Structures are given as structure tokens and as C-alpha cells.
């Protein structure tokens, strides 16, 4: 029963997170400005980190931790690059 609750709540949490990702993707698709799209991508990365963590719980496996760690550590690099491009027209000067 308890396990059942856990299973379901993980599922619900994941669905919530995926919906959150959907919101982010909406911004990526819709814009209207480039900064909105970048913001969407950044949000998508954050949400994906959490999705991976919930997935770890769901499968009781810590093997997916590294992927989440990498997103947290390096996911910002691409968004930072995009922001730099918007501000300076060039990523590396």
C-alpha cells in the first residue's frame, strides 16, 4: 500500500515535472524573443535534472546521479553561451 503510494506519487511528480518541461518548451517554441527561448532552455535543463533524480528514486538506482550532476554543473554553460551571443554577438571574444 505504502509502496503503492510512493509509486503513484513518483509517477505524479514525474508528470508534473514533464508538464513543467512542457511549459519551458512552449517558451522555446513560441519565443517571442530570443531571450525567452534561452530562458525556456534553461528551465528545461533544471526541470530535467529533477526528472532524472525522480527517475533514480523510481528505479532505486544511483547510477543516474552523474547525469543529474552534469546538468547541474555544466548545463548552464550552453545557456550562458547563448546569453553571451545575444549580448555580444559572439561567444568567445
Amino acid at each position, binding site marked *: 500500500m505504502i509502496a503503492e503510494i510512493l509509486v503513484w506519487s513518483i509517477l505524479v511528480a514525474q508528470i508534473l515535472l514533464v508538464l513543467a518541461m512542457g511549459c519551458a518548451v512552449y517558451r522555446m517554441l513560441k519565443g517571442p524573443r530570443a531571450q525567452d527561448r534561452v530562458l525556456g532552455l534553461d528551465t528545461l535543463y533544471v526541470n530535467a535534472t529533477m526528472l532524472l533524480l525522480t527517475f533514480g528514486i*523510481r*528505479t*532505486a*538506482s544511483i*547510477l543516474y546521479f552523474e547525469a543529474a550532476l552534469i546538468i547541474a554543473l555544466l548545463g548552464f554553460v550552453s545557456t550562458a553561451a547563448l546569453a553571451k551571443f545575444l549580448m555580444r554577438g559572439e561567444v568567445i571574444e
Partner: protein
Amino acid sequence: MELILALGIGVLTGSGVWLLLRPRTFQVIIGLSLLSYAVNLFIFSTGGLRTGAAPVLQQGTAGDLSTYADPVPQALVLTAIVIGFATTALFLVLLLAARGLTGTDHVDGREKDR
């Protein structure tokens, strides 16, 4: 589950092919990237889809296919990702060189007559 992934692969392939056939080099490189996602997923999927069965063994044991996913496609995909990464980089540099020399980003290095 298989159906979802298959459809996903299909959409990626379709989008990739569409872009591959476009006239701008940037479109082509995005298309190639999408296609390599599709192909990587495809290779990956040939080993069958297993959830929560990463092929990482317990210390000191031998594994078997009933508890672990097929590691071979994964290894192949890893190689394919690396090679795909390398070739994407090369294609990018090349399209920049072409853009610089020809002045256009058309795949043929010259604008088609309107």
C-alpha cells in the same frame, strides 16, 4: 513503450531529413544533428528497451541478460556519438569556410538565380 520511441525516432528522422534537403548550410547541420540523434536512438533501441537495468555489475559478479540491458548497442552508440560529434564539428568549420570563401551560406556556394 517501443511504439513511443519508434515514433520519436521517426519524427527525428523526418525532421532531420527535411532539414538535410534544405538549401542553407545551417539547416543542413541542424538536420544532420537531428539525424544523428535519431540514428543513435535507433542503434540503442536494437538491443531492446529495458528500464532500470543499467549494465553495471555488482563487484565480483558476472551478469546476464535477464538482469541487465544489452550493453553492446550502448557501446556502439557511445562510439557513434563521439564520431558524430567530431563530424558535426568538422562540418561546422567547413560550412564556415565555405561561407567565408563564397560569401553565401547556400550549400552549393552560390545563390540560386531567383
